[in-house]
Every structure is written in structure tokens, then in C-alpha cells.
């Protein structure tokens, strides 16, 4: 087995093993399942970029792409996690925050 053959095999295996994660993105029961699977696919895309760079012999170019992709994937995952957290838990917390200062004001006055 040559290095090129192994590189092609590793890229194909990475792509095939992304398909269960893609299934989880499509039919995941909650949106957090979809987000976890998207995070996995993003990380593996950065690895796949390194594999493609090794195959083309231009790893000096593709390694920068992989670094930028890993960075963007991390930031996007954190941003979507914060967004889903706030949008879901905001209506439950807002009345509680409003009620407690009013009671304190009533007690103080």
C-alpha cells in the first residue's frame, strides 16, 4: 500500500463516516442533536482538508485552510449554543427577574 493509496482511502473513509453524522443532522429529535452532529462534521472537514492537501502535495496551502476552518467551526458552534440557550430560557426567567425587585421595593418602602 503506497502513501497515495492510503491517503485516498483515509479521505474516502472520513467522507463515508460523516454520513451517520449527516443522518443525525437530518433527523435529530432535538436541535441540539443537530448541532452536535454539525460540530463533528465541521471538525472532520478540517481534517479532510489536511488529507486533501497531502494528496495534492500542497499541504503548505491547505493547512491554513484547515486552521481557519477549525476556528470558524468553534466560533459558530459556541454562537449557536448561546443563541439556542437564550431564546429558550428567556421567557421563563424574565418574569422572575421582574417580580423580585418589585417585592424588594415594596418591602423597602
Amino acid at each position, binding site marked *: *500500500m*503506497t*502513501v497515495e493509496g*492510503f*491517503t485516498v482511502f*483515509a479521505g474516502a*473513509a*472520513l467522507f463515508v*463516516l*460523516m*454520513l*451517520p*453524522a449527516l*443522518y*443525525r443532522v437530518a433527523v435529530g*429529535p*432535538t*436541535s*441540539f*442533536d443537530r*448541532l*452536535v*452532529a454539525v*460540530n*463533528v462534521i465541521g*471538525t*472532520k472537514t*478540517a*481534517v479532510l482538508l*489536511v*488529507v486533501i492537501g*497531502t494528496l495534492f502535495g500542497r*499541504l*503548505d496551502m491547505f*493547512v*491554513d485552510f*484547515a*486552521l481557519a476552518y*477549525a*476556528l470558524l467551526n*468553534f466560533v459558530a*458552534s*459556541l454562537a449557536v*449554543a*448561546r443563541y*439556542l*440557550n437564550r431564546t*429558550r*430560557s428567556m421567557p421563563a426567567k424574565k418574569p422572575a427577574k421582574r417580580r423580585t425587585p418589585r417585592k424588594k421595593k415594596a418591602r423597602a418602602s
Partner: protein
Amino acid sequence: MSMDVADSFVGGFSLDLGFLAEASVETIHSGLSALDVCGMILASVGLVFFLGAAVGLYRFPDFYTRMHAAGKGDTLSSLLILLGFGLITLDDFSMVGWLLVVKLLAIVLFIMLTSPTSTHALMRAGFEDGVEPVTKGSSSKNTKKEGES
């Protein structure tokens, strides 16, 4: 007499050296070096770990268990595959090769820092959102509604 012996030794040694140099050049160009073999083994182990992560992401019944499979298997397989291809790239010990390996190690360090962080953030968001973990009695109904909160 001793001079003759020394000359014959030097001649034979230089002949052997030339043969060895040709052989090593041939193995580098056609076959596999030790670094290639080590890199291929590392990348294969990483692919096995990613197979575990993918199967766990596909088959586990719960958000938390899926996150358990995805977080650990994804991180370790990414690290192993990147290190393996770094070893494969390090064939010639030139300056460009070392720079590439340093960049790959930077990606490895970055993934090792950020993947548990994003897993933690997602787990916290899902827990505060009220995603119910699967319990012993409710193991059959593992499909929860989308807009449930």
C-alpha cells in the same frame, strides 16, 4: 603489505557505501519509510476512533449519550489523524516540512482546546433548555418533539 590490505578495505568499503546509498534512495522513492508507516498506523487508529464516534452518534438513544460519543471520539480521532498525516508529511527534514508540522501541531492544540469547550457549551445549553435524558422506564420512547420546552 599492510598498505595493500588497507587499500583493499577502503575500496571494498566505498563500493559497499555506494550500493547502500543507491538502495536507500530507491526505498525512499518507491517504498515506505518508517515515518510513513508510523503515520499510516496513527491515521488508521484515528479512523477506528472516528468509526466509534459515528456509530455512537447514529445509534445512541439520547442527546447526552450522543454527545458523550461525539465529544470524545471526535476529539481523539482528529488528533490522531492530524498527527499521522503530520508524520507522513515529515518525509524530508527541510525547513518547509518543519513549518508544516508546526502548523499541524497548532491545529492539533487548537482542536484539543476547543472541542471539549464546545461540547461543554452545548451540553450546558441542552441541559438548561430541558432536554430530558433517557431513563430506565422511558427507554422505548426516545423520540422527543422538536419544539418541546
